[in-house]
């Protein structure tokens, strides 16, 4: 563990311990443990990484290394309306990148970030299996198909 101040609520700490225990506190299961923890908390803040390192008796630097190595882990909380843009091959060739750029511009954030008001966050995905609708955008649980850059403003309006 490092010597920054770590504060956690008892129930969150219990949850982390429960997840680690379910993998026998095995350091080799770190990736799976992080997955499950992120599923629960939505993201992996420093406090959570510290608690996992402490429980597994490994260094926080090691945990942080894994969190930053894999793009599916994130240290920032998702927005109230998480936006995901599919970057799979079909979506990509049909202009997903332009759509993504438009979201970046409209929200003034990068992939992996959340707007300061906590409303929207931006991420990219691999093929979501709806290639017929490419390019595909997900907002929360809602799916938008055949999205063009011009649609971005309209979509965002729905959530105002």
């Amino acid at each position, binding site marked *: *563990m*490092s*010597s*920054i*101040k*770590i*504060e*956690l*609520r*008892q129930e969150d*700490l219990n949850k982390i311990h429960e997840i680690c225990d379910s993998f026998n506190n095995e350091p080799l299961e770190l990736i799976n443990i992080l997955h499950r923890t992120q599923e629960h908390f939505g993201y992996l803040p*420093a*406090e959570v*990484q*510290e*608690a996992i390192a*402490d429980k597994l008796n*490994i*260094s*926080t*630097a*090691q*945990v*942080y*290394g894994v969190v*930053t*190595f894999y793009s599916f882990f994130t240290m920032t909380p998702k927005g109230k309306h998480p936006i995901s843009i599919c970057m799979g091959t079909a979506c990509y060739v049909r202009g997903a990148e332009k759509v993504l750029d438009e979201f970046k511009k409209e929200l003034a954030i990068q992939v992996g970030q959340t707007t300061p008001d906590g409303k929207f966050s931006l991420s990219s995905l691999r093929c979501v299996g709806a290639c017929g609708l490419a390019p595909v955008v997900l907002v929360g649980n809602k799916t938008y198909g055949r999205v063009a850059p011009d649609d971005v403003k309209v979509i965002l309006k729905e959530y105002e």
Partner: protein
Amino acid sequence: METIKITIDNKQVEVEKGTTILDAARKMGIDIPTLCHMRLDDLNIENKPGGCRICVVEVQGRKNLSPACITKCDNGAVIRTHTPRVMNARRTVMEFILSDHPKDCLICPKSGTCDLQDMAHRLGIREIPGQEIAAMSTYRKDTSPSIIRELDKCIMCRRCEMMCNDIQTVGAIGAFNRGFMAAVGPAYEQNLEYSPCTYCGQCVAVCPTGALTEVDHTRDVLRAIVDPAKTVVVQTAPAVRAALGEEFGMKPGTLVTGKLVTALKELGFDYVFDTDFAADLTIMEEGTEFLNRLKKFLNGDKNANIPILTSCCPGWVNFFEHNYPDLKDVPSTAKSPQQMFGAIAKSYFAEKININRKDMVVVSIMPCLAKKYESQRPEFAVDGNPDVDYSISTRELANFIRQANIDFVNLPESDFDRPLGESTGAAVIFGNTGGVIEAAVRTAYVLYTGKKLNRLDFTELRGMEGVRQATIDFDGFPLNIGIAHGLGNARKLLDEVKAGRSKFHAIEVMACPGGCIGGGGQPLHHGDSSILKARAAAIYEEDRNKPIRLSHENPYIIQLYNEFLGEPNSEKAHHLLHTHYFDKKAKIIVKQ
């Protein structure tokens, strides 16, 4: 031993099965360039991530070039190490590495001793294609009390990560991010200061570039010397005299004690003293403390805190404060020799020459980077005035000597000043792993048994094995000694102590592999462990040549107790020469 036959550069050779191409070539005197690979033979330290690909060679029948450092030789293999194709590939690799590297050589602290700079030169790189368009990855510079991290200069060889995790088991730093933005550092890219770093400096000792270097205090020292109002006192640690010569092209293992003293006098220090004096003092204090604990222990006292652990290595102190705070009463309370020296210089000696401690500046020359941090610990200051003002490394001193245009190799020899310059052979061996405990055994034996020692060389305590043990006959009582160097090895012994399973009465720990001769502030070994062995031998040679080899026979130590301290472990001695330790382990606080 199963052997195989291979051909390298048209020469046939027989090697042991499993040998890498790199090792086979080296045995034949063929120099394949390497960057990320590093091995210290006798210390079981090896880094081979196979990452940089500078070492590629051509193996007949293989389509791709193979990295020599991780490729094992096949029987009958035909290998060529310097074909045009290989040379071309190496230059491409190098150009790629340099395209994301600052061109700061002019003011880089590593300039002249940098492996990357050497390689660029060796491969004849003159320009870096694509430089104008490519952006470089940039990181914030991090300055801690001992170490500066400039990750812009990191080439991801991961040697530091290996040292910190596998050898030291500290885990202060690790690789983060991927691809272009990958680097090695503490969690959340925070400063080293907020990590469990011990400042052992072993990462600095192996970093091939200027990404990890020590905080340089030579400018402050120069200012103090120039200031006429200051009396500047210098102390030099045992391991320095066995390594400094290397910086001036002298053979590793050359003792330069006398030249070192002359150089320090020429640099303008007012008094040139020896940390060895304080090492003798450490033996008096720690030895007495040990015998007191041992008596209690033999009387059946469960709280006697046996085994005693040595406390003269500040890297090791940081380690147990972070990792074993529940054992913080077990190490000796004796300060390190550096701090004992500072405390005595600014009290006893300041009184003797009749000056105020505020007008005295104490500088230490150390093989060590942890000593920089140690000298800044608040408990080692009086009203904000530190006992040791500046701690500079062997490397910094070498630079300082070069700046002063001193012809080091041809310097005449001189003697340390008195009284704090007199020392014994027991103090000199503090520089080697096993040396502190050997010095302690010599004096403790005499004090415990009341008898004369019939031998002074306890060879069973010497060597490079990571964990060692020996039993010394204390006139019928078998005294069990444990020794560890490298913090991963220390951890093994500490876990036994923690579990109540340790059979030792006393344990010596040194944070750095080899002890201080392999310290993080020493001239760079560039992966050659024979250099460390030569230094260790030089230290034992200096011990043999000393007229007095027992700490308690040092006449100036006897005088110090008579005139000033009274007895070892007296109240005054406690006040000046002992310390206490802190629980630095991070704790998870439960929010209400």
